[in-house]
């Protein structure tokens, strides 16, 4: 997959950045960062320290990775949006979200960003379920994911197989859209629907994910319930409304494809 983009020989090598949201990830961050740097030395990274109370920011700085430290915790949506702002300000062509806990594989970055590099998509989602990647979830969680998947696919008239995946890449047009639309505490599902419904091209690529090396999953029963309700609401509302803008005017109107 990587070879085809090399064959095309673009005028200028496109710059890629990993946006790594991190809230109290001091234990898993060093391994994640050194692995990323050794497998993909051509890819830059930015850590968005989402109000950590541990040494997350210091560790990243010591490893020579740029850190954007948020004074308070904004949640994953706010952290990723901050990273995308950073990527836009620094002129990156592709930004991809990358977990600090070592769930995402650096070998699969090439496949993830390839559709954007070739100009075929504005947003790419790394899906665990296109091919059997051996990723197992509980029956309850599987059912919830199925409902959300079906609803989201219906909302954008396109098949989504894994809309809770955090392994996703954005081209500049999608980045611009991301920063002008304040998408909220659970951006995973809303972001895709809003992007597609405002004329961005979206595609999925198969990936496999590892187990988290440290830290804990955000899924406690109560949070899980809240997540489901919020997600359902997000799907329904993102279908009903035009994207919400915070402060600056919307740029969603420019040349849709």
């Amino acid at each position, binding site marked *: 997959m990587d070879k085809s983009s090399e064959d095309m020989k673009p005028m200028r090598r496109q710059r890629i950045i990993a946006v790594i949201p991190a809230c109290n990830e001091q234990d898993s961050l060093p391994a994640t960062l050194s692995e990323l740097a050794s497998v993909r030395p051509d890819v830059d990274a930015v850590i968005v*320290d989402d109000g950590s109370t541990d040494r997350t920011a210091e560790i990243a700085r010591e490893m020579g990775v740029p*850190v*954007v*430290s*948020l004074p*308070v915790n904004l949640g994953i949506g706010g952290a990723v949006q901050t990273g995308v*702002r950073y990527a836009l300000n620094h002129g990156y062509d592709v930004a991809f979200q990358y977990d600090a806990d070592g769930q995402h594989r650096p070998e699969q970055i090439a496949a993830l960003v390839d559709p954007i590099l070739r100009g075929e998509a504005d947003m790419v989602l790394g899906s665990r379920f296109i091919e059997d990647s051996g990723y197992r979830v509980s029956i309850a969680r599987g059912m919830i994911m199925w409902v959300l998947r079906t609803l989201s696919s219906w909302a954008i008239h396109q098949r989504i197989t894994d809309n809770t995946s955090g392994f996703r890449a954005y081209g500049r047009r999608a980045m611009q859209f991301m920063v002008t639309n*304040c998408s909220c505490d659970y951006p995973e599902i809303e972001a895709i629907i809003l992007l597609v419904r405002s004329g961005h091209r979206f595609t999925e690529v198969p990936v496999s994910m590892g187990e988290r090396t440290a830290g804990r999953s955000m899924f406690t029963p109560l949070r899980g319930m809240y997540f489901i309700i919020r997600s359902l609401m997000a799907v329904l509302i993102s279908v009903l409304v035009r994207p919400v803008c*915070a*402060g600056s005017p919307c740029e969603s109107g420019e040349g849709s494809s």
Partner: protein
Amino acid sequence: MTISQRLIAGIASILVMALIVDLVRRRKLREEYALLWLASGLVMLLVSIFSNVVAWLARLIGIEHPAYALFVIALFVGMVLAIHFTVVLSKLTAHNWRLTQEIGLIRRQLEEDSSRKEDPS
């Protein structure tokens, strides 16, 4: 309503309006929100003066006792105010969110600038 009921209601609404004006005077409350409270205070005052309006309104909605009608109206006004506040809160949250991001990015920019100054190569 009896005279004493009306008197107490009237005094209460005047006190509320006085409190609001005082809060604005001491810069503890913004005018835009004060207006809302002054309006509801005024409604309260008018209702206590022309209490037969309430009786007429109660009959209109189909409530036997004017006092119940008053409760219903008060509850409704309170709810509208509460919705208004959550809208204001949402706006504040959006601003906060944006400012937090900007602080993080500016901090990083400062770091970049100072490290560039340290080794001008």
